[in-house]
């Protein structure tokens, strides 16, 4: 047995990366072996993404990178250099719920919640590509995320509700846009 509390002394090579995280510019020195998931959680305090497997199956670590979702446990932080990242913390203002989050809440689409950030991020991409998804499209869009608690039934409902909310918001913005144009005219 030995005890010897030290600071890390072995020099590990690092590289500088610069990227945007939830709209904020970030520059950091990272070891090339540091996973993006660990970088975001441990170095940036973005605990909303969760680590459930670290081998790309569960989807709890899903974030958006340059408008495409990625499993951040399968990406090294150095690979995120010069990218634009959005995590669940970037969806709504502090304390508010994004329409997708609101839908998950209202439809009881979360229990322990450990998978939820990943599902919310995957739903966001799904709705961006397919604003009014069929059950098949929902199945396809969320097949890379595992939830062990809900049995998925309420997740279908939440996605449909989120689609309605998103549509309603788009309509609203559309109307306001038209009105602005009329005003301008």
């Amino acid at each position, binding site marked *: 047995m030995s005890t010897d509390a030290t600071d890390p002394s072995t020099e590990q090579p690092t590289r500088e990366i610069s990227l945007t995280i939830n709209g904020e510019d970030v520059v950091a020195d990272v070891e090339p072996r540091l996973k993006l998931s660990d970088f975001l959680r441990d170095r940036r305090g973005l605990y909303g993404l969760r680590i459930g497997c670290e*081998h790309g199956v569960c989807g709890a670590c899903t974030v958006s990178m340059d408008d495409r979702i990625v499993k951040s446990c399968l990406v090294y932080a150095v690979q995120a250099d010069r990218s634009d990242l959005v995590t669940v913390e970037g969806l709504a203002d502090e304390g508010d719920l994004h329409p997708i989050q609101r839908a998950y809440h209202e439809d009881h689409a979360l229990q322990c919640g450990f998978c939820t950030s990943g599902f919310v991020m995957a739903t966001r991409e799904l709705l961006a590509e397919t604003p009014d998804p069929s059950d098949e499209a929902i199945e396809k869009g969320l097949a890379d995320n595992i939830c062990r608690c809900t049995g998925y039934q309420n997740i279908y409902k939440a996605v449909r509700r989120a689609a309605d909310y998103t549509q309603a918001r788009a309509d609203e913005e559309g109307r306001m846009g038209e009105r602005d144009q009329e005003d301008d005219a």
Partner: protein
Amino acid sequence: MSETGIRPDVGTETGTETDGEVGGDREQFTGTDFERVEDHRILTGRAEYVHDITPENCRHMALLRSMHAHAEIESIDTSAADEHPDCDLVLTGEDVAEQYYPMPCGLAAFEEPPLAVEKVRYAGEPVALIVASDRYVAEDVLEGISVSYETLDAVTDPVAARENETLIHESVGTNVPDGERFDFGDVEDAFEDADHVVEGEYSWGRISGVPLETAGVVATYDPKRDAFDIDCNIQLHTLVDDTVYETLGYPPEKVSLNVPPDVGGSFGTKIAIHRYCCLAAMASQQLEGIPVKFVEDRLENLQGGDMHSTQREYRVRLAFDDDGSVHGLDTWFVDDFGAWPRYPVNQALKPLSVLTGAYDIEDVRYDYEIALTNKTSQTAYRGFGVPPHLYVLEMAMDKAARTLDMDPTEFRLLNMIGPEQMPYRLPSHNVYDSGDFPAALEYIRDHVEDEERAEGGLLDPAVVEEKREEGKYRGVSCTLHIEPGVSGSDWTDRQRSDRDALEAREREEVDELPEHLRGEISRDGTVRALLATDSSGQGHQTIVTQMLADELEVLPSEIEVEYLDSVAAPTEYGSAASRMAVMVSGAATGLGEQLRENCCELAAETWGVGRDAVTYREGGVERLDGGSGGDANSDDDDSGNGGGGDGDESDDRLSLADLADLDTAGGRAHERFTRASYDYEHPATALEEFDEALTGKFPVYPTAAFAANAPIIEVDAATGEVEILKFYSLRDCGTQLNPTIVEGQAHGGIAQGVGAALLEEFDYTDSGQPQAVTLFDYLLPSIDTVPEMDIHHSETPSPFTETGAKGTGEGGMIDAPASIASSLNAALAPLGVHVDRIPATANRLRNRIRDAEAENS
């Protein structure tokens, strides 16, 4: 995904309004789909799971694990690790054994070292630990430890393990450390006299809960107090804390286990994470109080995380007559507990609580053996040993119906316990509280007939015929299952008790654990409640919030629900065994009453009037005599509840805020009125019905929730692939405190049942190497494998519980595997295939179908 809102009137005594506004003008919250209070913090990423806790100057632990299933440890060389500049600490099994104690097991003869000593008994068993500045570095340092092993033969077949050719524990002298045979009634006669006997051998594959969040611990030793603070996601933190403090060699009050409000699922499995708590605590003590964190990674979790669950081999016989009446049941099984018989050894006994399922069978033999093998040890999993029992029972029922050439549903109905038999006492002494089982089974059968047998339905005979020509076999079976709820605690140490002495045990010796709940009214008029149990997604904060809002007649937003750590809380059973709906609702009702009464007493004292002159109403106490001046201020403002403590104290009404103010003002000598705790006694303790079960330490589960299931299944005979086209279920868990949460529990449980029936298994090679060490191998149900569910509800309140609720946390996982297997039998009946092993993977089914085809041709 259709969700019918049907609440059929099956055995229902009272209906439940689902949209509030029941009685008077006050909105009621209990029994409604009140939205969860836990969600907001989780959705916004502000929930703190234990993985998120990293104190400043925290160090990280990594474990070196054995790659051999069975081997002597010849030597361990840690010198390279010791010399590594970034290494803070190295501990081996011997280092730990010198200063600490072994971990308690489920059977008295066993003491498990937290790190292996002399011998490893399963692949993945921890052998040494490292602490370093971060996990990456800690894993680098692990490479500096080299262990030399002398390998031994591995034992992986639980049936063969009983030969004791190779012993897992030499000092114990057997691989079968526990077993018991129960004969209820006259079993020999029943089998001799019956017209028919069917026999079968069945297997239940090694499965588990596999929550999405793995185990995590942050342990801090405080040298000044000589005490430990351990943040962790252990389940039952007030019950199983002995596994941590005894191992550390400290009294309970020196070891505080603190479980965060949010835990990423457990399903029973995290009851067994004490090894990690112990090791991190020891490491922190060795480092003089530097916090040490450990997060289990998924590979460790699947390979050697002490979290596999039930694996059983069964032999079953059923005795019945030509007229279809069943008289005898005989089950024998071996339960593969892996290397150490840990806490959940009583998983082997729990099926006694539902011994004959929903059927009235008099003469029953139940015989089990616990076998030890070179596999990771068993922990609890949703259902706690019941799902395999119900599965083999239904397989035997299917086989018997086939023998008689009887419709399986009619055969089941013929033998079913009737509503007039309630409360129904099983031969094994547990009692079913209420329910009309035949009506429920008929309801689901008729519903499926109407919906699906009709033209265009999934079972439209024309469609079924057409599909069969394509080699696809469709079928459905209707089965009904009991979920035994609200385990007593006293029976759970039966296997550590002298079983012969139990005969002479007196009722007074029975010692049950109540559910503890505390509440306190704050000076701002809000109410703070403190739970003594932990949660992992079930919504206990929501349930307590709803119930206290109704009890105290305030808004739910006025209520905050928090948790007690293991030192502050009394020893409790906790969130397991489908207990919480009943226990926590009983406790919340009692606490509410207590607080209302206290408030009345305080108000009466304040006004100098008798207790009868005041009443509790709308979050405050009112004076019935209209208020006659005294020293209270004289203007007649009718203040509501809430608001600050000052100024709104009127002649005839005191709000909760006023009362809290009065109670805390002026250093009053008495016990505080606005602070109370309540212990809700286990419902069986006051009931004579349970006398025999309690004194004899037979499993005691006083609520019988039930479900009538009808999964419609299609099997592709060419590939063996199974698709569940739709899962119909009528479910009854008594009074529903929150129907949305109830339904969520059903969905999740059924999804886990689908996994157990078709996908999940921890398989091993003959040399003891685990075959499922990633989520690519251990297949969790995903959105595309979980079927559409059509869930119906009825409400038969429990006569035994305070609120009429029955336990409902485990149901789907308990009943779905049996009902899926039975539907597979129905679908494959034309081929003569009978399911005898689950998970019924595509490969296994394909083999069965091929064998049957060869036989038939």
